[in-house]
């Protein structure tokens, strides 16, 4: 449920299974940009042999390690928990390390490009600073007043469950860079910042909810969301992002009335 919906089962994969080979030939079509070479981005095709059960990240590595070392992308954990490698694969935002080749129609060229709406620095690497700036703007930390308890603060299992979904965020930016409103002008806080505000607004231990709501009441805050659900579809952690945004909107409305 949390992996983005997959494309149809591949016929190339079936063929590979029948003939008993592990590897299939794929074309990786990467949108490359290197400011040290040219001001224009260009599509470059790479023909490689991969196991369809491998990840798109493995295919990128194959290109980098065997064909062209200058291909540049971020990655670290390789299993979808660090949020380094959000990119647009076949036109949709995904983590390269959580997308298996067999799930992206390998019989056709697989397109890979940088996420939208952010400054492309090189190949698949974008400038993440504005994204983290929006995150910092919502005060993403527990705010409490009064004396600290000597032991832990108590919290019922139900109160803990209330914000569980939004604690899963790995700040990969797949959501924000899939949002059509964000592409327009980049001023919108973006779903990721709202998700992280939600995580605290609905934490029973937190006392800074009012301030965060006030920040998101901004003209570039939650009201810019047009419920297009691209964020929810893109989130590799299966967070119901639009639902979180909706809950923040409703909190703002009920706070007013």
């Amino acid at each position: 449920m949390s992996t983005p919906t997959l494309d149809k089962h591949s016929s190339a994969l079936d063929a590979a299974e029948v003939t008993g080979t592990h590897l299939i030939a794929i074309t990786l079509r990467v949108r490359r940009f290197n400011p040290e070479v040219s001001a224009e981005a260009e599509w470059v095709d790479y023909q490689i042999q991969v196991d369809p059960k491998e990840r798109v990240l493995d295919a990128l590595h194959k290109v980098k390690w065997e064909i062209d070392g200058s291909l540049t992308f971020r990655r670290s954990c390789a299993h979808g928990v660090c949020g380094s490698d959000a990119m647009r694969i076949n036109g949709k935002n995904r983590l390269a390390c959580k997308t298996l080749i067999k799930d992206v129609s390998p019989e056709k060229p697989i397109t890979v490009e940088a996420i939208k709406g952010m400054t492309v620095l090189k190949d698949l690497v974008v400038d993440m600073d504005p994204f983290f700036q929006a995150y910092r703007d919502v005060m993403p930390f527990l705010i409490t007043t009064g004396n600290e308890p000597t032991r832990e603060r108590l919290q019922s299992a139900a109160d803990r469950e209330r914000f569980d979904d939004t604690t899963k965020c790995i700040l990969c930016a797949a959501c924000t860079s899939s949002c059509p409103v964000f592409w327009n002008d980049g001023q919108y806080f973006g779903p990721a910042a709202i998700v992280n505000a939600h995580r605290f607004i609905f934490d029973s231990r937190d006392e800074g909810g009012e301030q965060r709501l006030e920040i998101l009441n901004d003209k570039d805050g939650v009201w810019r969301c047009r419920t297009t659900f691209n964020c929810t579809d893109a989130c590799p952690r299966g967070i119901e992002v639009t639902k979180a945004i909706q809950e923040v909107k409703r909190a703002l409305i009920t706070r007013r009335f």
Partner: protein
Amino acid sequence: MPAGTLYRGREGMWSWVAHRVTGVLIFFFLFVHVLDTALVRVSPEDYDKVVATYKTPVVGLLEYGLVAAILFHALNGLRIIAVDYWTKGPRYQKQMFWSVMGLWILLMLGAIYPVLGHAARDLFGS
């Protein structure tokens, strides 16, 4: 905007695109519609002349399109409102979208005769 492939969004994104397009269409139609209706205040003859053009087959077809736009916008608008106010709305948005489409097609089929009927009669005589 950095060129690249089109973002392959799903129901949510395309319904929003359609909602936006239909909203703008309706707005401009409404603008014109108020102007033409204003003629009743000035010159009933001219008004009837304008309305007569509404009854031609071509405009009839456009009218059908307008109904399509309004109905889609209205139904999808209700879906958006459900997403916003009904706790389970976001989870069922896709189902609601397909319900909207289903209802919309039904209504549009139902509208064929009332809206296009007279145009057909004009064209093919009856």
